[in-house]
Each structure stands twice: as structure tokens, then as C-alpha cells.
């Protein structure tokens, strides 16, 4: 597509439920990233995909968080047994192979609220 698409744009869920967040990157972008944006915390790196593999999962906050990417395209971030501290905006970005010169293109994010 023309841009990075994320769905849903807003999600309200009850504590303890599982949620899935979806990211559809720009066609042809091999690298895909998930970040979490919290008030006062800036952008927290979660995970990075190069193709379908995730060489860096160091940012996932706990084993309740997981992500996958299939076909070198769409990625899903899953949060199991959600907690209130998971409430944040989850941003996805994609880039060409190295992401160096061209930087990232971000999606509009999914605002997750855990009640």
C-alpha cells in the first residue's frame, strides 16, 4: 500500500483478555518495527523484523508479548492476559532494507486501553 496501515486504530479491552494488533507495511519494505509510545516515556522499542525473522526481540517487556510476521509482509503483535500497564499507543514502522538513509515510515498507531 501507499503507507503503513495499522488496525484497529483504537482498542479497549478488559484486564486479562488477549489482544492482537495488526500492521501492514509499505509494499517492498523488508524491515518492520514495533514501538510502544507512552506519555512521558517516549518511544520504546519492542521488536524488529527483517523479512520474517526477528533478530532483535530484546524490547518485548514480558513473555505475554509476542509478534510474528508472515510472507515478509503483515505483522501481528499479540498481548496475552493484558494488564493496565499495557495501555499505550502501539506504533508500527517499516523501512527499506537498511532503514538508514530513508528512515522509517510510521503507521498511525493502535491506541490500546486496558480497563
Amino acid at each position, binding site marked *: 500500500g501507499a503507507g503503513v496501515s495499522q488496525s484497529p486504530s483504537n482498542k479497549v479491552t478488559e484486564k486479562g483478555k488477549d489482544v492482537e494488533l495488526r500492521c501492514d507495511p509499505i509494499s517492498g519494505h523488508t*524491515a518492520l*518495527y514495533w*514501538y510502544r509510545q507512552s506519555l*512521558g*516515556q*517516549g*518511544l520504546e*522499542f519492542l521488536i*524488529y523484523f*527483517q523479512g520474517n525473522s526477528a*533478530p*532483535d526481540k530484546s524490547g518485548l517487556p514480558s513473555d505475554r508479548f509476542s509478534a510474528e510476521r508472515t510472507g515478509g509482509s503483515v505483522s501481528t503483535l499479540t498481548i496475552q492476559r493484558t494488564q493496565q500497564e499495557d495501555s499505550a499507543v502501539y*506504533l508500527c*514502522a517499516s523501512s527499506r532494507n*537498511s*532503514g*538508514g*538513509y*530513508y*528512515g*522509517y*515510515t*510510521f*503507521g*498511525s*498507531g493502535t491506541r490500546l486501553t486496558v480497563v
Partner: protein
Amino acid sequence: AQRVTQPEKLLSVFKGAPVELKCNYSYSGSPELFWYVQYSRQRLQLLLRHISRESIKGFTADLNKGETSFHLKKPFAQEEDSAMYYCALRTESGGYQKVTFGTGTKLQVIP
């Protein structure tokens, strides 16, 4: 480990005044630095990158390796510059890249 520090959470300036948004980084290798901007209700977007030495919307940023800084500057602030600004550091290790963002500075331009 790499780190990006933006010491100011909020910077308020009057329209027409000079702006400097501070960014310091810590990284032992050769850094690549970026500024990203997020206007109200819009997506986070790339503003400029140090390797291209460009000026975008009147903003410039110079990499100072001695001071490990990459401050964003504009001589005359405009109301439309009000936004959240993030400094970012790209590093590569073992063939894999990572971009670390600062905590952001909210720029408020007062009319």
C-alpha cells in the same frame, strides 16, 4: 549500549524567536542520527537525517561528535512548528540495525 537523551520535556518559545531542541547520544560506533516530528493528530514522520545535511522547514541539525550532540535548530519559530520532536540514533551490530529514540520534546510556539 546506545542511548539518546532529550533533556527537555517541554520547550516554549515565542513566535519569531530562535529554537534549539537538545539531543545527546551515547554510542561507541559511528552514529547515524535523525529527527522525527509528530504534529497533533498526525503520524510520526521523519524530519531530517544528519547524513544528508539538509534543511527541512527551516530546521537544521549538525552532528557534533566531540560533544555527542545532534541539536535541532531553527532561527525563527513559527506557530506551525508546535509539535512533539524525537531524536533518534540508528546503530548496526552483527548485520542487524536498531533505532533508539529519545523521550521526546514538546515544542510549543506561543503566538
